[in-house]
């Protein structure tokens, strides 16, 4: 097990014990169960039979799984990208605003309402007889109800809405610590507004951008409720596939195997991202101290 060196002897190990126990019981144990189930034979009415097989992983080769995976990646990438594009300016504005506390409050308020209820609220707004259609009809802008729901667009919209605060908060806290005189320095040195942001702001808030990306992408990649409630067949995602295998097909090993794939893909992705970030933060020193230059420029002449 993950017994760190010297855990038993040092007080530090003792202090860490509660969280170690917590993690072992509630994180590692379920994970171990899923790993184990993915290698077992499905029981007739759900559950598993204890005879090891690789059938579940063979079943993944099925084209349905591939299609759902591609759709999941498209939705997750798209929704994350849109979330980030909204969250960065929001975080920037909040960090520079005089009313930081009010704005922070506004970002937090949605958390006071249950997640599912907020999804139903979107259904009430976007439904065929929802507020938006009522408004459009009464204004005469459309002749009949527009079908806003049950497609990929609706899934992305509600996902962006749901995870926006998770992206805004880490971005806000990083940008808040950013020294804005650096942007003035960049402008002073000839950078336009956009290139000051690209060359100075973004590299320096990279940690926050990464956190916001992970906080958004990972839960969206595993989304279940949103595509279930506002999505259609085309926006079926891996989360729904797992749920269906578990509850409808009753193929627990297959559900476990799909979970394993998601876990492995996201873990690998996160590790690669962290590494890329780490190396490029430390790297970029490929310029040696340059050799003494000739008298080519005005400075040489002035000397």
């Amino acid at each position: 097990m993950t017994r760190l060196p010297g855990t038993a002897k040092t007080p530090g190990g003792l202090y860490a014990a509660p969280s170690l126990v917590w993690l072992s019981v509630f994180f590692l144990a379920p994970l171990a169960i899923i790993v184990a189930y993915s290698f077992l034979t499905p029981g007739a009415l759900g559950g598993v039979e204890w005879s090891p097989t690789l059938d579940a992983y063979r079943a993944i080769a099925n084209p349905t799984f591939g299609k759902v995976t591609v759709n999941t990646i498209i939705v997750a990438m798209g929704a994350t990208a849109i979330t980030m594009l909204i969250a960065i300016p929001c975080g920037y504005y909040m960090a520079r605003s005089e009313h930081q506390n009010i704005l922070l409050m506004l970002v937090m308020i949605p958390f006071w309402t249950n997640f599912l209820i907020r999804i139903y609220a979107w259904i009430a707004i976007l439904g065929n007889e929802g507020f938006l259609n009522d408004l459009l009809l009464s204004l005469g802008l459309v002749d009949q109800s527009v079908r806003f729901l049950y497609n990929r667009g609706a899934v992305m919209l509600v996902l962006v809405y749901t995870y926006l605060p998770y992206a805004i908060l880490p971005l806000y806290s990083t940008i808040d610590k950013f020294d804005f005189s650096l942007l003035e320095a960049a402008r002073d040195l000839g950078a336009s507004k956009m290139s000051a942001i690209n060359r100075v702001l973004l590299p320096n808030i990279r940690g926050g951008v990464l956190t916001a990306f992970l906080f958004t992408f990972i839960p969206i990649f595993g989304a279940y409720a949103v595509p279930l409630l506002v999505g259609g067949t085309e926006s079926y995602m891996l989360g729904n596939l797992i749920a269906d295998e578990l509850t409808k097909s009753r193929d627990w090993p297959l559900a476990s195997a799909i979970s394993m794939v998601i876990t492995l893909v996201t873990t690998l992705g996160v590790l690669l991202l962290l590494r890329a970030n780490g190396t490029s933060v430390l790297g970029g020193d490929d310029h040696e101290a340059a050799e003494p230059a000739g008298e080519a420029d005005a400075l040489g002449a002035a000397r």
Partner: protein
Amino acid sequence: MEARKLIDISMNLPHCALRIEDGSDSVAGPVSATGNGLPRGRALQGGIMECGGAKKKTVKGSDVVIEHVRKSFGEFKALDDVSIDIRKGEFFSLLGPSGCGKTTLLRIIAGFEAPEGGSVLLDGQSVLPLPPDARRVNTVFQNYALFPHLSVFENVAFSLRLKRAPEAIVKARVSDYLALVELQAHASKKPSQLSGGQKQRVAIARALINEPSVLLLDEPLSALDAKLRQHMLIELDSIHDKIGITFIYVTHDQQEALSVSDRIAVMNSGAVLQIGTPQEIYEAPATDFVARFIGETNLYEADVTAVSGERVDLLTAEFGAIVVTATNPPPAGSRISWTIRPEKIRIGHTEPRAARDGINVVSGVVAEPIYSGFQSKFYVDTASGAQLKVIKQHADWSDEGPELAWKDDVWLSFSAEDAYIVEVRR
């Protein structure tokens, strides 16, 4: 040291103002080019060259004309009708206490603030419509504002990278400017690995590599310790001599401003109180505020009793009748403020023998001697109850008698030529 002294003397002369005719980039005249690294060889109008052995000085950059600039933040008037003419190639300081508007003025020149009225002209062209990146000025920021994610090399190369300069040119130019600030060995370090003085030099190189026509320096030395500050000040001065562009230097430290500036504008509460050479500012302060702010001073009020030519007789509550000089004497009967600098007062145990007309003599008791290494300051109480500050260098071989001590009876004397009328009250 010798060179500095000569310069100081030259600055008292009215004809010494550095004036460059249109279109000329360097000053014509018999200039020697020994290049011995002495600061500030000053070429003068009419081909006069002072400072024996000083090097050739190239004058580049732009003149900056600030006209009736106004700026307020809410109720607070940061700048109230400020007008300053800064000459091409000048080392010009904006000096004043914090909140006097000097940094706001610098930020207006740089383009980070827009004034509510007035104009800022660079070589006769208004820069106000231009964004900061389109102005031929660069700034050295107070907190350096180095890009923490970039190496020293890339920090300096920043503006060249923006212009997509070829790699070979970037390398050559960056190493030139790193050489100028003696940081070649640190090119690959990150700003966080540098000392304060090194960061400062990166900031200077980064601002200069763009070859601006005006360099703005916003309290660039305030974050450094006293010794380093002195050193950097000399470096700044020599960089100014090498580059030859206009420097506008914002500081609240009168010592800094006095030692490097060609001219100084003293500011307070959003207004310019006086513009002049360090000598003019120090020797002939225009207002009480300037007199108090620049160096230490003794400032008193008095009534003018008689005027003859430049000689003015005063009746003071503190010292009785004294005599001072004034180039523009106010009429008899005026109420004025006058000043005498502490180091211009002679202090001794014996009454000055050679006292002649025009030497004011006062007696008193040492109330507080303050020893500070290279000199001592004495607070001397006079019979009338006034207190005078006197600064004295320590005795050398030519001095007689014991050092001055607490409660000693002393004689103070100062020349009418060193005492000035500052403000005329009525």
